C-alpha cells in the first residue's frame, strides 16, 4: 500500500516449465489488478522478486545488486497478506498471485524507505514542486483518485471533491511535511480500481484538501510567487479564505478586506498588511492554490492608488466606526 | 400564518376564540383581542382586517418577554400586566397561562374605554378563560 506507481520485475528460477508458463500468463491478467505494474524478466539478477522452484536454495539465485530483492519459495510461501499465511500451492489461482505480488510490493517499499537519500532540511523548490503538482491535479477536477509521490511519501487526492487522504498507518502531518520538503519533482498517477478499494478497506477517510494547499502555498514560497503570477500583476481575492479553518497572521487579516474590495499590487499589500514582501507572496500563493486569486493586468506606477512609500491616507472625518474598533480590540484581547 | 397545527390545541383554541369574540362584542371600546402563545403563535383572535394577526401575535410575545426580562432585571418579581398608552388607544397585555401552557391575552382599546373599564373587562375575560381551560 505504501509503495505505489512503480514498475517492478519478477523472474522465475528453477521452476518447472509448466509452472513458469502458467505464472507468465497469470501475470498478464493480474497486472490490471496489482498495486504495482509487474513485468516478467528472464534475468533473475535484475528482478525485484524471484520465484524459486522446489528445492532451489536462495543462495543459488544470482542476486540483484543493492539487495532490494525478494526470493519466494514456490513450495512454501511465507508472505503474509492481511495477517493470513499465504501458500502458493498448485493449482495456482490468480487471486493468490495478485496477493503475492502486492505483498512483495509492500515489502520492497518498506525495504526501500530506510535507504532513501537523506533530504536537505529545506529543499530549494521542494514545496513548489509539490504545490504545483497539487495545483495541476486540481485544475483538471478529475473524480478519480490520484497519488502524489515524492520524498518516499505518498498522498492520495481526489481532485473533484477537493479531498485527500493518506494510508491508515501514515501520519498526515508527517506525510505532508515530508512531501513539502521534497526536492524531487512530485510524481502523480491515477490509481487503479483495486488500489482504491484497498484504500477504502484500510479505513482511510478523505479530508478536505484546502488546509494542505494553504500550507503548501505558505511553506513553499520562499519569497517568490507561483509560476503564472507576476511581480507586477495586481491581485484580487474572489472571497475571504475560511480563516475559521486556515491558519493566518494578523497581517493577512489586515490586507484581506482590501484584496477583496479591489485588485492590489504587491507593494500596496506590503504597506496595508505591514508585512514583508515574502509574507505577501506566501499569502498570495496560498490563496492562488485555493483558486481564490484573480490576476489583473499591471497598471503604471503613476496610476497606483497606494504607493509603497506613501502610507494610506484616510480622511478621519469620514471614519464612523474605525475609531472605536481599536478600543474594542484592546478590551476583548483581539 | 403563525398557528400551531396541532389538533390537541383545537379545543383550547375554540374556548379562547369564544371568549375573545364575546369580549369584543360586549365592549364597544374594545376594537380587538388576540390570544397568543408566549413564543408568538396565534391561538385565537378577533381583530379587523387592517391588523395582521400573525404580526401582532409575534409582537405580543416579544413585548411580554421583554416585560418579564425587565421585571426580572429590576428585581420586582414576575411580570403580570403590560399597558401601552398610545395617542388613540391602548394595548393591554395580560398573562393567561394555565400550568405549563403559557399564553398572553392582548386587547386593543380605543379612547371610549377608560383604563379602569378596559382593565376590568380584560381581567374578567382572562378569568373566564382560565376557569374553563383549567376545568377541562
Amino acid at each position: 500500500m505504501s509503495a505505489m506507481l512503480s514498475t517492478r520485475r519478477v523472474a522465475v528460477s528453477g521452476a518447472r516449465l509448466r509452472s513458469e508458463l502458467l505464472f507468465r500468463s497469470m501475470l498478464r491478467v493480474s497486472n490490471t489488478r496489482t498495486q504495482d505494474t509487474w513485468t516478467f524478466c528472464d534475468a533473475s539478477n535484475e528482478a525485484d522478486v524471484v520465484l524459486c522452484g522446489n528445492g532451489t536454495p536462495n543462495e543459488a539465485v544470482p542476486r540483484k545488486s543493492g539487495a532490494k530483492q525478494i526470493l519466494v519459495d514456490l513450495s512454501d510461501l511465507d508472505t503474509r497478506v492481511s495477517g493470513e499465511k499465504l501458500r502458493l500451492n498448485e493449482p495456482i489461482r490468480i487471486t493468490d498471485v495478485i496477493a503475492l505480488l502486492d505483498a512483495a510490493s509492500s515489502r520492497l517499499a518498506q525495504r526501500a524507505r530506510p535507504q532513501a537519500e537523506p533530504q536537505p532540511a529545506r529543499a530549494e523548490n521542494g514545496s513548489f514542486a509539490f504545490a504545483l503538482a497539487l495545483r495541476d491535479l486540481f485544475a483538471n477536477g478529475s473524480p478519480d483518485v490520484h497519488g502524489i509521490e515524492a520524498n518516499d511519501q505518498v498522498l492520495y487526492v481526489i481532485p473533484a471533491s477537493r479531498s485527500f487522504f493518506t494510508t491508515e498507518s501514515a501520519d498526515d502531518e508527517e506525510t505532508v511535511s515530508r512531501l513539502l520538503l521534497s526536492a524531487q519533482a512530485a510524481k502523480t498517477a491515477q490509481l487503479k480500481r483495486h488500489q482504491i478499494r484497498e484504500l477504502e478497506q484500510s479505513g482511510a477517510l478523505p479530508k478536505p484538501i484546502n488546509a494542505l494547499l494553504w500550507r503548501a502555498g505558505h511553506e513553499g514560497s520562499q519569497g517568490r510567487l507561483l509560476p503564472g503570477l507576476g511581480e507586477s500583476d495586481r491581485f484580487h481575492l474572489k472571497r475571504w479564505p475560511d480563516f475559521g479553518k486556515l491558519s493566518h497572521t494578523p497581517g493577512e487579516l489586515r490586507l484581506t478586506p482590501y484584496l477583496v474590495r479591489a485588485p492590489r499590487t504587491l507593494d500596496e499589500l506590503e504597506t496595508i498588511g505591514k508585512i514583508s514582501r515574502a509574507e505577501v507572496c506566501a499569502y498570495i500563493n496560498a490563496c492562488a492554490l485555493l483558486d481564490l486569486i484573480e490576476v489583473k493586468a499591471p497598471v503604471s506606477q503613476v496610476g497606483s492608488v497606494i504607493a509603497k512609500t506613501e502610507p494610506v491616507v484616510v480622511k478621519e472625518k469620514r471614519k464612523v466606526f474605525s475609531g472605536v474598533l481599536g478600543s474594542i480590540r484592546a478590551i476583548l484581547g483581539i | 400564518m403563525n398557528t400551531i397545527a396541532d389538533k390537541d390545541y383545537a379545543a383550547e383554541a375554540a374556548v379562547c376564540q369564544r371568549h375573545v369574540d364575546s369580549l369584543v362584542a360586549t365592549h364597544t371600546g374594545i376594537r380587538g383581542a388576540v390570544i397568543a402563545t408566549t413564543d408568538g403563535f396565534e391561538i385565537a383572535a378577533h381583530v379587523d382586517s387592517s391588523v395582521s394577526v400573525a404580526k401582532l401575535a409575534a409582537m405580543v410575545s416579544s413585548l411580554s418577554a421583554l416585560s418579564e426580562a425587565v421585571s426580572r432585571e429590576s428585581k420586582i418579581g414576575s411580570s403580570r400586566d403590560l399597558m401601552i398608552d398610545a395617542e388613540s388607544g391602548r394595548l393591554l397585555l395580560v398573562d393567561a397561562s394555565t400550568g405549563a401552557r403559557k399564553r398572553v391575552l392582548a386587547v386593543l382599546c380605543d379612547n371610549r374605554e377608560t383604563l379602569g373599564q378596559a382593565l376590568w373587562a380584560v381581567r374578567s375575560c382572562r378569568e373566564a378563560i382560565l376557569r374553563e381551560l383549567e376545568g377541562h
Partner: protein
Amino acid sequence: MKEYKLIFTGRMGAGKTTAIAAISEIPPVQTDVTNNDRPAHAKATTTVALDYGEVTLPHGDKLRLYGTPGQSRFDFMWKILSEGALGVIVLIDNSAPDPLADMREYLDAFRDIVSSSRAIVGVGRCDTHPVPGIDSFCEAAKEMALSVPVMSVDVRRREDVLLMLEVLFHQIEAAEADEALS
C-alpha cells in the same frame, strides 16, 4: 458616553446566545420562552425578543451585544435591533435543513448593513455537516450581489467568536478607508 451595537442573528439554535455569552462581561439577559414549534426546532426554549450582553469600553463607552429572535415572524425585532448597528454577525447552523436558504434570508433582512461591508457569516457544525461548503455560501451571497466573509466557526470557542469580530472590524476599517479615499 458613546454606545455601539453588534447584532448576532441567525435561526433558532444557531448559537447567538452562546456567542454573546462568550464575550459579554455580564451574564446575558435573555427573553427565552417555551418553544411550541417542536416539529420545526428541537430546542426546548426560544428567544422571542432579544438577548443582551455588554462590554465596557474606555471612557465609559459601551459595546452592546444584541441577539435577535431567530424566526422570521419576529423580523420586526430584527429591524428595531439593527438600527444604527456597528455590524451584524449572521450565524448559520449547517445541520439545519437548508442552511443556504437561512443565510439568504438573514442577508436579505440585513442587506443594508451587509452591503456596507459590516457583516460576517459564521457557519457552525461544519465538522459534522460539511455540506454545503463555504464555497457554496459565498456563491449564494454573490448571487444576491453581496460580498461577505464566510467562516466555519464553533461559537462555543471564544477565539472563534473573536475571529468573527476581528474579520468584521478589518472589513469595516477597509471599507471606511476606501470610502475616505474615494
